[in-house]
């Protein structure tokens, strides 16, 4: 009796299936509980990985609910790579469609914030420019200027929810209660720990345009009249988020 890895994997992810035939206890009897050891290892290790990746989503839904939800998620989306630091990338779309969470529409946005923080944490290192270098650009060259944004910079925008306030209220003891309203956040990594900042919709448009390699002039056009350019650039410089001027 040959046990294929296809059959082994199916059995691991579907607890309703019997253990594949050909797996044995020491006395030669068909293995049952012994196969469950592997089932349990897979489910627990993937569920643990999701717990450590999404602490705020977990806090919002509660430990017990999160574990049950993780059990469904890990069977629908097992990892596609051995890099567990990237596991959970489908959680926002999963939360949008999962029956028990689909009416908690802020959850996918919070999951996107947590994914962005983890990406920032593992992003490549980069040496920031000196603020003086930006000040030294001649006014007539400013609109054509391109800025390379650090790989650790992430922008997340919600269409409907105060994602910064919700994130802060669930990670800082002294944070105020969230008020309704859409928010965007900038995630940067001045040293090793990602930082999170509430930014305006105009800031978010401007920074996204700069990340795409657009000139400052184009980025300003996309941001519209509400942008306070001095404040935006000040924030980027203070977070060591600009690494090259072209």
């Amino acid at each position, binding site marked *: *009796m040959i046990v294929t890895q296809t059959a082994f994997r199916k059995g691991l992810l579907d607890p309703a299936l019997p253990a594949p035939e050909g797996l*044995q*206890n020491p006395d030669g009897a068909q293995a049952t509980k012994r196969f469950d050891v*592997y089932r349990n290892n897979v489910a627990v290790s993937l569920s643990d990985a999701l717990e450590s990746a999404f602490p705020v989503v977990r806090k919002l839904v509660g430990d017990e609910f999160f574990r049950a939800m993780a059990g469904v998620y890990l069977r629908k989306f097992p*990892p*596609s790579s051995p*890099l567990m630091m990237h596991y959970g990338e489908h959680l926002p779309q999963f939360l949008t469609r999962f029956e028990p969470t689909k009416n908690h529409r802020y959850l996918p946005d919070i999951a996107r914030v947590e994914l962005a923080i983890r990406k920032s944490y*593992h992003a*490549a*290192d980069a040496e920031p420019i000196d603020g003086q270098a930006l000040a030294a650009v001649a006014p007539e060259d400013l609109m054509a200027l391109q800025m390379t944004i650090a790989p650790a910079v992430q922008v997340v925008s919600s269409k409907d929810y105060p994602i910064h306030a919700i994130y802060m209220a669930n990670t800082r003891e002294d944070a105020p209660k969230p008020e309704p309203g859409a928010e965007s956040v900038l995630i940067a990594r001045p040293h090793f720990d990602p930082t999170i900042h509430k930014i305006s919709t105009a800031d978010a448009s401007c920074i996204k345009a700069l990340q795409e390699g657009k000139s400052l002039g184009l980025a300003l056009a996309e941001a519209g009249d509400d942008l306070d350019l001095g404040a935006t650039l000040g924030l980027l410089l203070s977070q060591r988020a600009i690494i090259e001027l072209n």
Partner: protein
Amino acid sequence: MLDATSFNALPNKPGVGHKPQHYKDILGNPGPLGWLEIHAENYMGDGGRPIAQLRHLSEQFPISVHGVGLSIGGEGDLDKDHLARLKHLIGWLNPASFSEHLAWSTHDSHFLNDLLPLPYNMKTVKRVADHIDEVQEVVGRKMLLENPSSYLAFAESTMSETDFLKEIVSRTGCGLLLDVNNVFVSATNLNTSPQAYIDDFALDAVGEIHLGGHDEDEDETGAPLLIDSHGKAVVDPVWALLDYTLERSGRKPLLIEWDTDVPEWPVLAAEVARAHAALELVAA
């Protein structure tokens, strides 16, 4: 501090599986600690703290890179992207040792994050040997292959695990990583003798020994079922099996693994001290 030339190989001293929460303790008070092991996959990000800490640690300690995601026992081809990441890590870090598991974890592009078992027969010898040849070719160095913890047996197996490993060593030239806790766990679970396993093991090929804790359970018939959890102190019978092994193998680089419910450094340091004492008992 340690002599930089010793970084070409792991010393015959105790090491620990590195956890970031112990970073400052390890640098501040290493005691008899002679080297560190890291899980390769945790250092395959592009940058940030993990890479910076590893770079710094590698200037102070010999490093062993221990892969957990290559799926050497997999039916399918090795993941070329993952091999390239491994080559990159080994390239910049230049570790003292590189090891992986006799197990599979990926099938049809799905990674299952566990070390899954395979049957032992001539067909799987060829598959594993071909994969090890490919790994050693790509990363450009010899690897060590670790014996697994077994919870069950395959009806289709025709060889013992020790014979299987000897055959792999002879075909690929790889070395072996002998996990003494895994030997104890497998022997208990499969109702065989752990000492007989050690007696039959290719000890000349061993480049590193692992020790870790396990959990105790029972199968549906009431037979003991030990689970390799790496979440506890090493138990006395495993320390005794280590002594039995070291008497036959001589001193080896000896690792304490503690991966879940990771304790404060002093608890792990006590295990390191015990490992150090076990090595000191053996003729140099």
